[in-house]
């Protein structure tokens, strides 16, 4: 059988008054997701709901367990920030079996019933970054790409968007992973500069790597433009100081807030949009 035995199912709750939200985050080792979580908790607090947060540490298997544990705690609505959209499906389906509504954040689920997806479009963001580089560095400029953790969805989507444009408008002559990590971004960038001295611009899949790349570029004395992704505090500060050229800023706090609102609406029987977009914006030094 694909369903838990009847005797094991929890008693269903009808009371909508004190709503308990379950939030499963893909990771809290990254300021972006920390902000996303903060957005959820702040909004929930405002609305007087309680939140249980679990952290999957980027492991889809742990996320499946986490969601089960949240269901066990009798949450009324599940906000899931999937570590991977395919892998999260079965967790969504288990929630569906029990009848708990699911809202996903930042990434969707391939299968199962999801009431709403609140996300900024990573593919779109990658395209925005590429467009900006084409505009500033010129068509067919040599660029480098600092990729995130191999296999992570952000890596794939941002890379995909970037290449949608870059493949015909830019020359991506170096493409290396720096694992979303600042110190690796620094080392890898040092080496790229060494190998490809004619690089004009770098697109980093997140701000951490971009900030690492800046350190490498500064000490090499070259002039290379850097575009990051996420818009975290450090990056925004670096843009203000003129160190970083641009970042594709997401609005994690907003994503969190919108997700809570969507969850509330579903529980109150209101209709919600399937796709709720949190706008991306390209932040530059102007």
């Amino acid at each position, binding site marked *: 059988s694909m369903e838990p035995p009847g005797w094991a199912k929890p008693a269903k709750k009808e009371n909508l008054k004190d709503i308990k939200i379950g939030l499963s985050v893909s990771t809290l080792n990254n300021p972006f997701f920390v902000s996303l979580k903060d957005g959820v908790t702040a909004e929930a607090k405002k609305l007087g709901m309680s939140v249980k*947060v679990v952290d999957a540490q980027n*492991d889809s*298997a742990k996320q499946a*367990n*986490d969601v089960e544990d949240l269901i066990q705690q009798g949450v009324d609505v599940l906000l899931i920030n999937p570590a991977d959209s395919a*892998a999260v*499906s*079965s967790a969504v389906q288990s929630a569906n079996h029990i009848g708990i509504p699911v809202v996903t954040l930042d990434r969707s689920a391939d299968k199962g019933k999801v009431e709403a997806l609140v996300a900024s479009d990573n593919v779109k963001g990658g395209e925005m970054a590429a467009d900006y580089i084409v505009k500033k560095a010129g068509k067919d400029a040599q660029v480098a790409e600092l990729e995130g953790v191999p*296999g992570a969805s952000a890596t794939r989507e941002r890379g995909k968007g970037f290449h949608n444009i870059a493949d015909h408008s830019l020359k991506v002559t170096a493409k290396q992973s720096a694992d979303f990590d600042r110190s690796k971004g620094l080392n890898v960038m040092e080496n790229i500069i060494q190998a490809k001295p004619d690089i004009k611009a770098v697109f980093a899949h997140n701000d951490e790597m971009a900030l690492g790349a800046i350190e490498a570029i500064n000490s090499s004395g070259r002039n290379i433009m850097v575009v990051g992704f996420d818009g975290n505090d450090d990056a925004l500060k670096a843009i203000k100081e003129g160190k970083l050229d641009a970042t594709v800023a997401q609005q994690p706090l907003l994503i969190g807030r919108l997700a809570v609102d969507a969850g509330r609406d579903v529980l109150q029987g209101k209709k919600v949009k399937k796709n709720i977009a949190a706008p991306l914006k390209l932040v530059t030094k102007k």
Partner: protein
Amino acid sequence: MKAAINEGTPAAKSNIFGSVTQKLGPLLGLIILFIIVSILNPSFLEPLNILNLLRQVSINALIAFGMTFVILTGGIDLSVGAILALSSALTAGMIVSGLDPMIAILVGCILGGVMGIINGLLITKGKMAPFIATLATMTLFRGLTMVYTDGNPITGLGENRLFQLFGRGYFLGIPVPAVTMIITFVVLFIVLQKTPFGRNTYAIGGNEKASLISGIKVPKVKVMIYGLSGLLAALAGAILTSRLNSAQPTAGTSYELDAIAAVVLGGTSLSGGKGRIFGTLIGALIIGTLNNGLNLLGVSSFYQMVVKGIVIIIAVLLDRKKSA
């Protein structure tokens, strides 16, 4: 430090009394943990949660069973997480290309066994230290996974019912992964305690030279054991593939550490020759209960790490005290 010299001192005692506490030590720990968690959050003991717990534990337990054999010989296998990922990717690849999922799982497990055998050969024929041999293959297998999947998860595994049941279904009300784990446990328990192969495993860990001289085919046994470890990692990978309905290239990252922790919490000595697989089952349940319980208690993931570190230290220290 004197203990090092007095080793084996409580001669008579250790047989009558020692072996009882050796067996009960970890179990006692588990029971205490159970009591604490269920007092703090009664929903822990609800049937569904216990079923969840069993399912959650099954993957780590399967890997840890293989790791028990490896550690009993005095070795270590750091590559299990990477084997899990690679075999899972290969299995998914076969399913996508149209092979029957259950046959794909079987082939995947065999491939996992082969990867383990490669470890075994590096260690025996290549005379590499297990730590470094499996550290290298960990990197290698993980790299191959990335190359094979191009860093993308493999999805579209179809709707084969048996395959879905394998990771997500229930058999007589018990989650199928838990059933798999229990059957594997019983088989391996018998192998380890009741067969010459099991005895040889202990012997090699107890004194490898003496084992060799006693006519035990030490290299052969070791290769088989690393093969077993790879096979079980692949089996765990198959369950994960079914649960997640996809193969994740990053699956299994740092699972080796959880498996080793389960083995050690279960009272098996890292220097080999001493320990039992029942302890490993308990060890895996302790780790699973911690994960599950801390989630239920709403402890933030940062504090969860702190708590887990402390619990491991306390558990091992208590075990040492008892056996001292």
